[in-house]
């Protein structure tokens, strides 16, 4: 039963995201057909543009366009891009793997960095190191991703010549974008991890473990870390949004042909069919990841397992 409710909730979230995008896009002045064909480069007359609007169906009332759009999606027809005429499904299928690879690499790196920061920040001795490390997350969260990206390119590609930006493939093309993306993701992750390590570290049972003669390292790795994991996993699920936003900026800076670049271009050109598909994809991703996180809780925390069976 809870699973059915979760799925119903998920579908509602997706439908709401779809509708909200549609309404917001309609509220803005102009539309994708105008943006493409009223472009002065083409020099079309108002009558010719009107004819094209009829061809694309954007002359229809808003509610009718909305129903058509929903109907097409249900039928598995995602439409064509207003900007280029390419099939939206093709665009997504081409762009998605690029972004998945980048997101996975960026997220993995972010987790490694966050864990390293959190452990150093909770390391018992060396107070100066703890303080220095604790100032990293606020710094990471406040530097804009595009700036980090440009800086990395300038230093490591143009300056030192270690990796190419233009004409790079595979791993070479992934290193700098993944680092760029990991910066804003690792910040909240490490912050939450540090905080819960602190909290757990002060709890009574830790004091008991200590009183029984356990060393600081033992306490941190065996007792504290495991219990501090739960809030971190929650925030990791929520960070998916950050990941999508970071991908837009990172891909634009590095010229990667992923979902981020697709989104950026679609938004700039008011390309509604593409924007809708991307929003839908993001909503599905968000829902699925948070579902996975929910299912992970009982695996990590035996107490939750018992509650559910009780």
């Amino acid at each position: 039963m809870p699973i059915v409710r979760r799925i119903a909730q998920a579908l509602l979230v997706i439908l709401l995201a779809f509708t909200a995008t549609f309404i917001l896009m309609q509220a803005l002045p102009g539309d994708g057909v105008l943006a493409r064909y009223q472009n002065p480069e083409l020099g079309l007359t108002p009558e010719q543009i009107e004819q094209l609007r009829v061809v694309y169906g954007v002359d229809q009332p808003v509610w009718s366009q909305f129903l058509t759009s929903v109907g097409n999606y249900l039928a598995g027809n995602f439409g064509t891009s207003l900007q280029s005429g390419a099939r939206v499904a093709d665009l997504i299928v081409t762009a998605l793997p690029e972004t998945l690879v980048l997101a996975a690499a960026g997220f993995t790196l972010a987790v490694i960095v966050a864990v390293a920061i959190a452990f150093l920040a909770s390391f018992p001795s060396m107070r100066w190191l703890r303080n220095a490390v604790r100032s990293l997350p606020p710094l990471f969260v406040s530097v804009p991703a595009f700036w980090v990206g440009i800086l990395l390119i300038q230093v490591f590609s143009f300056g030192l010549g270690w990796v190419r930006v233009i004409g790079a493939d595979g791993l070479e093309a992934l290193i700098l974008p993944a680092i760029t993306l990991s910066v804003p993701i690792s910040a909240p992750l490490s912050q939450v991890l540090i905080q819960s390590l602190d909290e757990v570290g002060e709890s009574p049972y830790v004091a008991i473990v200590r009183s029984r003669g356990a060393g600081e390292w033992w306490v941190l790795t065996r007792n504290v870390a495991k219990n501090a994991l739960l809030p971190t996993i929650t925030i990791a699920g929520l960070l998916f949004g950050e990941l999508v936003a970071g991908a837009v900026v990172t891909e634009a800076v590095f010229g990667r042909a992923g979902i981020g670049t697709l989104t950026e271009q679609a938004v700039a050109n008011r390309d509604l069919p593409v924007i809708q598909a991307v929003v839908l994809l993001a909503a599905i991703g968000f829902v699925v990841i948070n579902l996975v996180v929910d299912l992970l809780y009982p695996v990590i925390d035996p107490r939750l397992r018992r509650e559910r069976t009780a």
Partner: protein
Amino acid sequence: MAPIGRRLASLLLTTLTVASLAACSNQTSEPAATSSTSGEAKTGGTLTYLEPQTWGSLYPPSGGFYPNGGLLNNLTDRLLYQNPDTLELEPWIATELPEVNDDATEYTFTLRDDVTFSDGTPLTAETVVKNIDLFGKGDTDRALPVSEAINNYEGGEVVDEHTVAFHFSAPSPGFAQAVSTINSGLVSDATLDLDSDGFGPGNAENFVASGPFVVEKEEIGTKISLKAREDYDWAPPSLQHQGRAYLDGIDYVVAGENSVRVGSLTAGQADIARQIEAPDEAVVTAAGLSIVSDPTNGVTNSLSIRFPSEKLSDIRVRQAIIAGIDREAIIEALFSDSYPLATSSLAKGAKGYRDQSANYVYDQAKANSLLDEAGWVAGSDGIRAKDGVKLSLAFNIALPQPRSADVLTIIQEQLREIGIEVTIISGDQAAQTAASADIDQVQIYHSMVARADYDVIKSQYYSANRNTLQNLSSATGEVTDPKLDELLLAVASSPEEADRAAASAAVQDYLSEQAYVLPLFEEPQVYGLATHVKGFSTESVARPSFYSTWLDR
């Protein structure tokens, strides 16, 4: 005896052949040896070209958009070739300039018979007619718009195997130039049957034309690779270079970030980058690389002062705006030597240009007194008002044009000094386009257009074309100044070249006398080139031509 004799003869023949071959190669190797210093072209290599934007369509009439045009210019051939230096028309796929009847309503072309498309099919008279029919009429069912360059088109006709004729409902003197532009690039029959989607990204590998390069591989949104056609042998006869292109291929790579384009170029990761912004030019030259800045030969980057708007109906207000904007200060602050101060609504290199600089003089005192005379009085906030209406004007941001928002911000400050409030419309391309079509939302319109023909000025200002002045009011549907339309029509309908030049000059005189337009600067296309790139050139409106480009490395 006979065999020995035969053997001797053959020996003799072989020796002679080898000797003569050696002599030949001697002859050619002499200049080849010196070529590395004197710059004889080398064949081979793949050039990496950086584009700020991804392309949107390979439908030739969409070639005005820079990324589209940059591809189409190298993928397609045209009936005629416009020499980018002289702007004269020369034969290309047509073996000579067309025969034109007296009132320019009928054009007859004779075609080469040795041209093939990249799929092996021959370029026939039928295909040529099918091309121009589509471009001249468009096909709204397939969302393929008509070409802006072709006016009054009625239809084409196959006269015989090598001859085609085109008919027009009214004089169409710009047609010969129109078929030389990227917008009239010839494509194969199968490609002509594509719809708007078929010309779009994801389908580039199916685009078949007859040009020196063909699409080899496409990665949607980031990269498109062209390769040279080995059997290409129909370059414009006036070119020194004939046969296949020197380059083996070109990689067009999208790099939207300015610093990435400039950095990759100076770090040697790319060979050519398009759109080097003015502040970056010094970075490129400081690294020892070269800047190529080519003029776009059309309507200059300018402000259309929309006189049908009530606030701008008084010529004194329009003159005050012109006198109140210090264009030299703008160019000094934002641009470089590649951006010459405009002296007319047309660029110096444009067909029909006439100097109007006397009408575009910065004089703040004059601007103030003109506004005083016109009855606009400064209020407590320093903004002038008349009958309770503030002198507040809205400008659009010309997103495709260089640093438009920065230009407008300076203009905002300058006009504030003479008591005019400037608001700048914000928003993306769709929002800008929608607002710009409405005179109530945008009273001063920032734009430019490139085309190396007399018709360009009509394209920009005529009420049924771009209508940048909103002479045809979007509110009332009426033409405010019929005289302007009349003058513009004369440019596009006089069959004689001299008459067209005179008509164009008359339009420029009228635009400056009436204070309808303030031209800012002549908009160039600025490319950064690595030192080993040779023979790079651009066509008549500054889109890249890679046919004669080669790499000296």
